[in-house]
C-alpha cells in the first residue's frame, strides 16, 4: 500500500482499471486459477441437487395419486360450491355465530396466555447460557420437543376425553402444544442474547439470579412479548379448527354447516372469522412494533 501516488490522473482515469485488468488477464488467471472456474464439486452440486429435488417431488406425486384430470373434473363442483355460497347470509343465526366466535377468541387468548406463563420460567432451564449443565438443558429441550411434536388437534382429542367436550378442552389443548413451541422459542431467544450485560452484573458482584433478572430478562422480554403476540394472532386462526373435534368455538358450526350444505351461512361465518382475524392482526401488529421499537426481530 505504500507505493507512491501518481498525481497524473484526470478524467481519463475512468476505465483504467478494466483496461489494466484486460491487459493482465493471463497473469490474473495464472495467479488465481480457482476464481475462474467452478470446482467439480460445486458444479456437481449445482446440477445434482435440483435434479434430486425434482425426482423426489415427482415420486411423491405418483405415490400420492396426483391427477390433473381429477382436478379438472372437480372444477365444476368447486364452481357450484361458490355459487351456492352467494350471497353470504347469517339466516337469523348472527348472534349464535358471534357467541361462538367470542368463545374461539377466548380459547386463543387463554391458551396462549397459559402456555406463555408456564413456558417462561421453564425456558430458562433449557437455555445453555443459564443452565450450563447439559443434562438439564438438553433434557428440558427434548421435553419441549416431545410436547411440541403433538399437534393441537391431537391434544384436543386427548383433553376431550379427560375434561369432556367444550372450550375448556380447547384451552388446555392449545396451552399444551404452545407450551412446547414457546419453550423452544423463548430458550432460543435467551441464548441469542450476548453475555456482555450479564458479565457486567457478575463483575459488580451479582449472583446468578441477579444476572438472569437484570442481565437477561430486560433483553429478552421484548422478543418474548412479540412472539407471544404473534402466537395469539395465529392461534386465533387455528382456534377455529379445534372446534371441529368438539373443543369449543366456531369450528363445530363450520363442520356442521358444510355437512348439511348451508353454504350461505358458511360463507357468512367465514367472513366473520376473516374480519375478526384481521382486527386481531392489526392490533397485535401495532403492539408488537411498539414493544420491539419498530425493529425487526427474526
Amino acid at each position, binding site marked *: *500500500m*505504500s507505493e507512491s*501516488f*501518481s*498525481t497524473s*490522473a*484526470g*478524467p*481519463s*482515469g*475512468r*476505465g*483504467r*482499471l*478494466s483496461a*489494466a*485488468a*484486460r491487459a*493482465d*488477464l493471463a497473469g*490474473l*488467471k495464472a*495467479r*488465481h486459477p*480457482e*476464481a*475462474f472456474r467452478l470446482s467439480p464439486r460445486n458444479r456437481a452440486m449445482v446440477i445434482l441437487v435440483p435434479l434430486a429435488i425434482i425426482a423426489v417431488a415427482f415420486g411423491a406425486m405418483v405415490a400420492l395419486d396426483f391427477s390433473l384430470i381429477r382436478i379438472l373434473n372437480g372444477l365444476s363442483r368447486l364452481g357450484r360450491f361458490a355459487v351456492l355460497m352467494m350471497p353470504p347470509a347469517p339466516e337469523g343465526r348472527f348472534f349464535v355465530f358471534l357467541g361462538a366466535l367470542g368463545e374461539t377468541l377466548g380459547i386463543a387468548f387463554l391458551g396462549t396466555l397459559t402456555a406463555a406463563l408456564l413456558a417462561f420460567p421453564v425456558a430458562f432451564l433449557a437455555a445453555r447460557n443459564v443452565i450450563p449443565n447439559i443434562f438439564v438443558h438438553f433434557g428440558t429441550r427434548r421435553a419441549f420437543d416431545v410436547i411440541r411434536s403433538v399437534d393441537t388437534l391431537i391434544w384436543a382429542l386427548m383433553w376431550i376425553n379427560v375434561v369432556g367436550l367444550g372450550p375448556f378442552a380447547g384451552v388446555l389443548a392449545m396451552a399444551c402444544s404452545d407450551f412446547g413451541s414457546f419453550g423452544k422459542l423463548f430458550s432460543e431467544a435467551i441464548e441469542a442474547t450476548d453475555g456482555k450485560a450479564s458479565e457486567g452484573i457478575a463483575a459488580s458482584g451479582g449472583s446468578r439470579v441477579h444476572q438472569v433478572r437484570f442481565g437477561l430478562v430486560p433483553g429478552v422480554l421484548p422478543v418474548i412479548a412479540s412472539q407471544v403476540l404473534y402466537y395469539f394472532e395465529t392461534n386465533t386462526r387455528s382456534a377455529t379448527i379445534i372446534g371441529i373435534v368438539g373443543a369449543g368455538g366456531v369450528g363445530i358450526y363450520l363442520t356442521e354447516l358444510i355437512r348439511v350444505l348451508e353454504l350461505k351461512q358458511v360463507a357468512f361465518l367465514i367472513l366473520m372469522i376473516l374480519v375478526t382475524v384481521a382486527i386481531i392482526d392489526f392490533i397485535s401488529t401495532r403492539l408488537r412494533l411498539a414493544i420491539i421499537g419498530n425493529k425487526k426481530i427474526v
Partner: protein
Amino acid sequence: MLVLDDVSRRFNNKAAVSGVSLSIAGGSFVGVIGRSGAGKSTLLRMINRLVDPTSGSIRFDDVDVTRLDGRALRDWRARCAMIFQQFNLVGRLDVLTNVLMGRLNKVPTARSLLRLWSEEDRAIALSALEQFDIAGLAAQRADSLSGGQQQRVAIARALVQEPDAILADEPIASLDPRNTKVVMDALLRINRHYGITVICNLHSLDLARTYCDRLIGMSAGSVVFDGAPEMLTEDVARDLYGLEAGEALEAAPAREPRSAAVGPYAVAV
C-alpha cells in the same frame, strides 16, 4: 463537477439538511466534518439518491441527479459508488462475488442473476482486490473477514464500478488505528491514481487534515465551513464541535489526564 444547489431534506418536519449549496471539482478529495446528527450522512446519501432531497437540485456535469429514476438512476448510482461505516457487504457471499456486485450495472441481468460472470469481470474484480493486497481472500465468505479487510473489499467493490465519484460515509468509524490508515490510504490511492472524486464523512479532524484537499464543515444541517484544511483554525473547530473541539484537536487531553473520554470525535492515529 458536482453541483448542489440549495439542497434540503426534512424528516418528519425535522430538517436534516437545509439549504446546502456546493460545487465540487472532479478529482478532488473532500472531507465532510461535523458532529453526529449534523446532516453529513444525509448529504452523502442524497448524492447517491438513497435519500431523496425534499427540495433543491443536485447536478453532475450535465445530469440532473434529482430527476433521475429507473434505469437512469441505477446508472447514476453506478457512477457514484458508496462506502459505508458498517461495510454493507453480503456476509454470506464470498469476497469475489461481493466485489462483482460493483459490476451489476454493466452485466446483463440474466447473466448476473445466474452468477455467470465473464472472465473479464472476474479479472477486473481480482485486479481491484490485488491492489489492496486481499486477492488471496477472494474465495472466503465476507463475514469471516476482519473489519479492515471487509472495508477494503467494499472499496474494491466501489472501484470496479469505475465510478466518477466515491462517497464514503464514515468509512473508518468502526476500525482500529492501523486499519484506519490502511483504508484511508486506499481511498487516497484511488483518488490520486484514478482521478476519482472522493467525498468522505469523517469524525476525526486529524485525519481530515491529513488526507483531504478541501474540508466542508456542517452543523445543524448547514454548511458552516468550506475551505482548505489549513484554514480550519481552532476557533472554527470549536464552532463545529462545541466545547469538545479543544480536546478533539489535541492528541491527548493535557489538562485532565485522568478523564478517559476524549469525546467521540477524536481518533488517535
